[in-house]
């Protein structure tokens, strides 16, 4: 049996996040959560392996209680077991603290894994660091940004593109991969499956104490980095705003900027009189 772990994170749904342009702070409550896209690809890669190799998948997330939803979604898609690592003390973790905490949870609750799959990066923090750092923390080999994988016995053969090189690499399990987005197009969960998954009570939730961790090891206190502030990049232009019907806007655009555009494309754009 191939025992797999998929690490997943809940991220805000929209890319144009609602933020307050005056204070520059996020109104995060307004943004709903979803499974980070790259984690979906990682789960898909695990599901394909499971179909082929008699696999077993544990989905793990560290996050606020609301993140349980993505574990339910993972069950609906075919994960066998879930682990929710949640504790107010874990809030504000950077990648160092996140990978540390995930590693301890894995050591205690699924120590006999063969393969860990992570997304290549998250859409909110985008560091692409948690996967590689988790492999260091567990002292197992890892390969990032994998595009295809194939398992023979306990050897994983992968391909990926790395800095203009198409690489084929091999790694003996146990090991960790991060999955590139682009391949492994995620499947959809059926509504019935989702319904069942929300009935299924079997989500194990653990906190810092269950992992034998001190509050200084996790969350903000366990992090090496500090955020000073978050702000919006400022514009630099005169910024003329045009609104109305598309046809009218386009006419106005050429009335005002026919020369600016025409001189570049070397065409006379003056309207016919």
């Amino acid at each position, binding site marked *: 049996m191939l025992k797999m772990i998929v690490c997943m994170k809940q991220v805000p749904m929209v890319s144009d996040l609602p933020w307050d342009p005056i204070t520059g702070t996020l109104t995060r409550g307004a943004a709903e959560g979803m499974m980070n896209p790259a984690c979906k690809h990682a789960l898909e890669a695990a599901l394909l392996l499971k179909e082929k190799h008699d696999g077993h998948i544990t989905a793990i997330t560290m996050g606020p209680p609301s993140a349980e939803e993505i574990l339910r979604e993972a069950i609906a898609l075919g994960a066998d077991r879930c682990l929710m690592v949640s504790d107010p003390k874990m809030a504000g973790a950077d990648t160092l603290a996140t990978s540390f905490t995930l590693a301890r949870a894995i050591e205690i609750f699924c120590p006999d894994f063969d393969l860990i799959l992570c997304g290549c990066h998250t859409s909110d923090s985008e560091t692409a660091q948690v996967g590689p750092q988790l492999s260091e923390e567990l002292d197992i080999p890892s390969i990032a940004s994998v595009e295809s994988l194939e398992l023979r016995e306990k050897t994983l053969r992968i391909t990926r593109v790395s800095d*203009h090189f198409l690489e084929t690499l091999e790694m003996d399990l146990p090991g960790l991969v991060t999955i590139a987005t682009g391949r492994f197009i995620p499947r959809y969960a059926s509504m019935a499956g989702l319904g069942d998954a929300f009935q299924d009570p079997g989500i194990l939730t653990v906190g810092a104490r269950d992992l034998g961790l001190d509050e200084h090891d996790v969350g903000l206190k366990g992090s090496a980095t500090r955020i000073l502030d978050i702000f919006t*990049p400022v514009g630099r232009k005169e910024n003329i705003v045009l609104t109305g019907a*598309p046809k009218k806007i386009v006419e106005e*655009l050429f009335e005002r900027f026919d020369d600016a555009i025409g001189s570049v494309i070397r065409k006379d754009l003056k309207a016919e009189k």
Partner: protein
Amino acid sequence: MAEKKHSIWVFGDYRNYFQNRVTLQLLSRANDLAKMIDAEVCATVFGHEVDEWVGEYIAHGASKVYVCDHPALTFYSTDIYVVLMERLVRQYGPEIILVGATSFGREFAPRLAKRLKTGLTADCVGLDINDEGLLVQTAPAFGGSLLTRIVTPEKRPQMATVRPGVFQEIPHNYQAAGEIVNVPLPDDLPGDRIRLVSSERQAAREQKLGDASVVVCGGRGMGSRKKFRNLYELARVLGGEVGATRPVVYAKWADEDALVGQADKHISPKVLFSFGISGAIQHTAGIKNAGFIIAVNKNPNAAMMKMADVAIVADAGQVCTALIRELKKRIRS
């Protein structure tokens, strides 16, 4: 020369030297930072027969280069480079380490930071020193619509990865002097746990988009592949090229060649049309040198709209069609 108090290290990532100058760009910025904290700028070079790169790094601003030259290092290896670097860092104690955010750097740096139990900020678009002498790392957050400033107050070294194109390299100076520190390959290095089966360099692509004077860029806001294809007609009428954002390339509305952004392509058109693009920093980093910008977006608050000369609040697909029609009417030859 008086001993400096600190050192700033730049990881020498020479594998695509001629296309990717990020190491040189970092050496340049490291020199600026070094003046603010009394530091010397050092580079590291791991590989086999690497004299050429050592010389280049000195010519571009490294005053010291730690070199480990050995046949066992012929191919880049994350496993081995991480251990090698960790030992050097423990021996010499640099204050700051900068790594180019290449595919390799993005895998190497987090693992090194983890071993050193220090902080790492990914994909920085700005690096500075504050009053307390800390490295202030500006990085994109939340999909690139916001920027955040991050410090590593206590742990050392302070580490950052930086995408190519953020900083300007200093012109080479082959008269520059630099000290070379030869580092022997430790004989107790653990073996590489990854086996390289094959590695083929992929052909560099043609750079038509990079030279175009008119570019029509489209993003997810174009709504569908079919509507996105209209941008090709608009580009044809304008005699320009089509660019795209990453989601569009992922959705296969456009070829990968069309991707514009810090990762892949910098463009510098005199006129840039931007349709249904939110203006994430990873994208706008690629259009820093654009001249006149016309952006179309339903959302007047999108970052892309703020950096445009003309911001059109409307449906991107409709404006595209209207533009094609109006242009065909006005171009009478």
